[in-house]
């Protein structure tokens, strides 16, 4: 047992937008080297929580500590060295190349005004090699496939050398092969001592890859734990208002098969 502080400790986290309570007192605590799955229906507060942790949003109340440091009292550039954020889509990227995008991940580390250090370039190239996009480095992000774009976004977050990586719906635009590939990359990062939190709608995928799952509904955490223990037909019905078949396949992997929504829930 080590005395390392938890990588993420959230206490009583609340976030309000114009009277709407997006987060209602969330408490979470995780150590390092975990792949955490964040699951819940649309609008349950997954993205809001990740944006609060990465300081894109200011929380209304509560505390967020990353690696033992209270991020609300830190400068944004210092937080960026602890927490990296991977958005669901790159959006319009104005002709930016893969290399340039990955290099932007080094922004918090560069002291000079204009040019990055050779060390930053080495880190970016290393990351592109790790995620298999080095050969695309001069290609415009906009001209890459969804899978390539997603890997470029992950590489950009990776060069921030964060303790905690927050990944928002990384597989929503991807086919089966790339879904598995991206999840394997995330798992590999978690195994290398980086804690990775993924928000995702594909519960089977989350259950298969994640060490821990956090289930959210209407701004609250309703369950935390080993996916095999917490994901049940009753929970799916409660959280999603959907009847689903939850079972184990021949390899002992959990699967969730949605059947129908509960009458009167829409």
């Amino acid at each position, binding site marked *: 047992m080590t005395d390392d502080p938890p990588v993420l400790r959230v206490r009583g986290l609340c976030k309000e937008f114009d009277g709407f309570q997006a987060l209602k007192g969330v408490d979470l605590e995780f150590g390092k080297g975990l792949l955490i799955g964040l699951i819940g229906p649309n609008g349950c507060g997954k993205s809001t929580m990740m944006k609060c942790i990465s300081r894109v949003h200011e929380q209304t109340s509560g505390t967020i500590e990353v690696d033992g440091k209270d991020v609300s009292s830190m400068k944004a550039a210092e937080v960026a060295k602890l927490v990296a*954020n991977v958005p669901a889509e790159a959006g319009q990227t104005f*002709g930016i190349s893969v290399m340039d995008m990955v290099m932007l*991940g080094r922004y918090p580390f560069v002291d000079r005004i204009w040019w990055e250090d050779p060390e930053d370039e080495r880190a970016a190239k290393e990351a592109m090699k790790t995620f298999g996009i080095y050969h695309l480095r001069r290609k415009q992000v906009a001209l890459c496939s969804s899978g390539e774009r997603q890997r470029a976004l992950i590489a950009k977050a990776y060069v921030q050398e964060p303790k905690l990586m927050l990944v928002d719906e990384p597989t929503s635009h991807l086919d089966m092969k790339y879904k598995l590939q991206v999840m394997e990359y995330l798992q590999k990062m978690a195994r290398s001592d980086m804690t990775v939190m993924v928000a995702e709608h594909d519960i089977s995928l989350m259950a298969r890859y994640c060490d821990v799952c956090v289930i959210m509904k209407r701004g609250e955490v309703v369950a935390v734990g080993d996916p095999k223990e917490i994901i049940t037909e009753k929970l799916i019905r409660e959280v999603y208002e959907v009847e689903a078949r939850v079972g184990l396949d021949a390899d002992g992997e959990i699967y969730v098969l949605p059947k129908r929504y509960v009458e009167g829930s829409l």
Partner: protein
Amino acid sequence: MPKEGLFSQLKKGYRGMKSDLEEPDVSEIELKKKRFRLIVLFGSFMSAIAFLISISISSGGVIPVSEAVGALFSSIRKAVEGDTNLDMVELYIYNARLPRTLASIAVGAGLAIAGCMYQAIIRNPLVDPYITGVSSGAGCLAMAATALGFSIPFLADNTLYVIPVAAIAGGVVAFVVTMTVAEGSGGSSINYILAGTIVGFAFSSVQTVFMSLGKDNLTDVMWWLYGSFGNVTWENAWIVFVPVVGISIAAMVWAREYNLYSMGEDQAAQLGLKVKRFKRVTMVVASVLTSLCVAFVGIIGFVGLVVPHACRMALGSDHRLIMPASVVIGAMLMLFADLVARTVMSPAELPVGAITAMIGTPVFAYMLMKRGRNYDG
């Protein structure tokens, strides 16, 4: 492989930059630094040529370049020494050509870099320096000043300043209204575009009213509405040149922050940029730049919209290359446009804003056809 010098790189030009890319594992930062040096060198060289042509050719004829350069240096030396005994050529170069040339360089560079800043921050390829309603506000008050016969008490003897002062005041008022509406509605990029558009419409319609009221002395203000360097003198050339060139260069310090913005506001914020403050500062700086540009020479379109796009198409998305290139190309385009405006229909002067579009459109259309397929804005 022997290391190539900068001059041989320049000789090879764009092809040289492309062959660099084919080398495996070359340092991307070094490559960009090389491109930057190339832009500065090429830009300085071409600007010097454009400058010499600009001071040598006029509606009155052509002065040989050597004579023009000689007269330029001797007139500057005399001006510094306080000697007022200038010969005809020196007088002509020093008092007529030089201020006009400097103002052309400043306005071309200023509008191009303001366009570059706006496009980066608003993340919309259709944005130009007039997006915050500055030109409409400036045009409206310039028209009002002419139609209603305004005079400025402490500048009563100098009617040359009435339109520029009114234009700056109008530009500032329009920008303040746009900023108030945009920030009041959330401060997003689309809020700025919509607020700027409606403020622009409002000022344009009031301008039309003043236009109909003052139709008898419209010629006093028409040059301003279509853009002209005809009224530039030493007194106002400095007011345009020094701040515009200063701000244009200073804005380049933020080139990496503009790169960050190309990923969107959330990503920029997550990487440590104070996005709201950065956007406001950029808006203010770019609007000041635009107001200074339009105050003395009027509304000149095209440069601020198209030059940044042309640079992006040729050089990629890095603002550390696009911004200096925009300064150079904007300045050169404006120098040539002014040269054409004052010579082709001599002694009449054509509106320089129309010439910039006439020269620039075919060039840009060619670039668009050549590279448009792979261009993401």
